[in-house]
């Protein structure tokens, strides 16, 4: 009887220890992913980008190169399956023949369809409006790619190489522009914006759309701008001037 009691007590102690250990692991795992990213974000801010297409040169892709270097998503030469976080698109007005060039990346929508359709909540929006993929929770179903009206997301088709410590990537998951959250959270500019101002024509402005006195808000108050596929009511955080 005594032995049985001791065994039972022993068992309960071990079971409690194991439960606490597992629970701690689960909590740590969760806070290390989405929760951590969300708590760093400032809910009073709404980060946005303004792109002046009047000055964007069709021959310049400084923003694309900077993003690849910063985030380590250089492709392997297979254009159909290589990742694309940001791309340059050249346009011609059907009626007038006027040409335009502009970068297209995740538009960081206020009402993002990728977040709506994601079955596992891996696609999520930070309190400051940045739309991200939690690569620990992405199952690689690609429904978000189907739902994005901007072709802003890509699927990692091949084993990854040259990963950056601040931007882990994984084969079999979906990824897209993070607006360089790792830089923003340190008070720096996204890599594309910085490259555009130093190597390009300085047509990209980054800032807080909620701050009336920010550079981006001041410019938006002066000029007519457009959101891509504004008819869909997604309220993107990326705005284009001169389009």
């Amino acid at each position, binding site marked *: 009887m005594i032995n049985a009691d001791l065994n039972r007590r022993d068992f309960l102690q071990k079971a409690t220890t194991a439960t606490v250990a597992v629970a701690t692991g689960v909590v740590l795992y969760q806070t290390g992913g989405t929760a951590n990213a969300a708590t760093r974000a400032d809910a009073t801010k709404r980060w946005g980008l303004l792109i002046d297409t009047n000055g964007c040169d069709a021959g310049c892709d400084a923003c694309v190169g900077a993003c690849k270097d910063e985030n380590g998503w250089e492709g392997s030469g297979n254009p159909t399956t290589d990742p694309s976080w940001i*791309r340059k698109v050249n346009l011609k007005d059907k009626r007038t023949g006027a040409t335009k060039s502009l970068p297209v990346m995740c538009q960081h929508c206020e009402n993002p369809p990728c977040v709506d359709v994601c079955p596992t909540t891996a696609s999520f929006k930070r309190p400051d409006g940045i739309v991200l993929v939690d690569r620990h929770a992405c199952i690689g179903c690609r429904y978000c790619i189907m739902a994005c*009206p901007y072709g802003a997301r890509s699927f990692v088709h091949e084993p990854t190489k040259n990963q950056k410590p601040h931007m882990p990537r994984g084969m079999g998951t979906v990824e897209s522009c993070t607006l360089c959250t790792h830089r923003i959270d340190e008070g720096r500019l996204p890599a594309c914006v910085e490259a555009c101002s130093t190597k390009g024509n300085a047509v990209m402005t980054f800032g807080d759309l909620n701050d009336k006195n920010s550079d981006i808000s001041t410019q938006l108050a002066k000029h007519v701008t457009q959101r891509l596929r504004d008819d869909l009511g997604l309220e993107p955080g990326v705005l284009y001037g001169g389009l």
Partner: protein
Amino acid sequence: MSKATSFSTIKGDGPNYITLLVGLGTLILMGLGAAYYMEHNGHHVTGMNNQIVWGVPHVFAIFLIVAASGALNVASIASVFGRTEYKPLARMSGLLALTLLAGGLTVLLLDLGRPDRLIIAMTMYNFKSIFAWNIILYSGFFVIVGLYLWTMMQRSMVKYTKMAGLAAFIWRLVLTSGTGSIFGFLVARQGYDATIMAPMFIIMSFSFGLAVFLLVVMSTCNGTGRELGDETLYRLKNLLGVFVAAVMYFVTVKHLGNLYAAEHSGVEQFILFKGGIITTLFWGGQILVGGILPLILLYGSGTGKSRSAIATAAVLVILGGFAQIYVIIIGGQAYPLEIFPGYDVTGGAFFDGKVGEYTPTLAEFLLGFGGVGVTFMLTAVALKFLPFFPDSLASGEESSD
């Protein structure tokens, strides 16, 4: 005079049965091998890419899932609508619904970028996602149809059959609406974004599911020497004809509606006239093979009572169904996103403004056929161990319970 239907397991010890199991097992192994190959190397070894992210595996998966819901039709007609002449086939109808769904979900799961994260899909739900709703609907389908079968097969539970049948009937209507809405809710793409997708998928499920069911019943009778009466067969084939015509009606309404709206004329031109293989599959596969020819075979004066013609019609409905789902899934993605209305795209690094290219690979087909193997392996094994199939389907045989 009708008498009680008796059910029994199939013997399942002859060379034909063993050959069938070996063949299906081979299909499953090849499917698993293809999945391993894709997961190990990454999806770049498939024909899928960043423009066509859902390919042939999804065509197989959606076909099987849609057919699963439709296969339950015969049981519903018996239990919900009280048509006793369908009762002898109700158990088989429920079984096939479960096995088709299992096959479809196997393909869907194994095509994921990270199938090892199934536990995440089962535990982290975004209730705003129609995809997440489908996970719940599919899981619930297994439970409800399982219970439904129990009420049919356990004598003491028979009093609950009607109730369980009604629940299963409602559930499967919601389920197929959910499957159609996976596409219908995609506002971003011109080829989707149509609420008619939900009812169209329901009627597609009736047609594809019954075609598969008809073939399984015919081949089971053939393989086991059980009688399949003309009356039963003609009843099923007439029903199939009605469903085939109904699918064509929905397809016509969908495309006419799109043609009427100028904003959708581009995608309609693409699907109906300029889409290359998509256009060929639409007219040749979906309309001719999957619609017109089966209708001629099912109702033609020379063919309507021929068993081989009826079986051929069912095969054509299935082939046309695959074509239809291919056109919906691949065609809808291949047509470029309309990101810049009013502009021509003259250059873009991500195939902006260009029709998506897709050449499916062997691995994708093997994975798809692996799912088919799972469906029929489960069916064949279940028939051996539980009495799903009636001893006779001769005319005049009806269930009294």
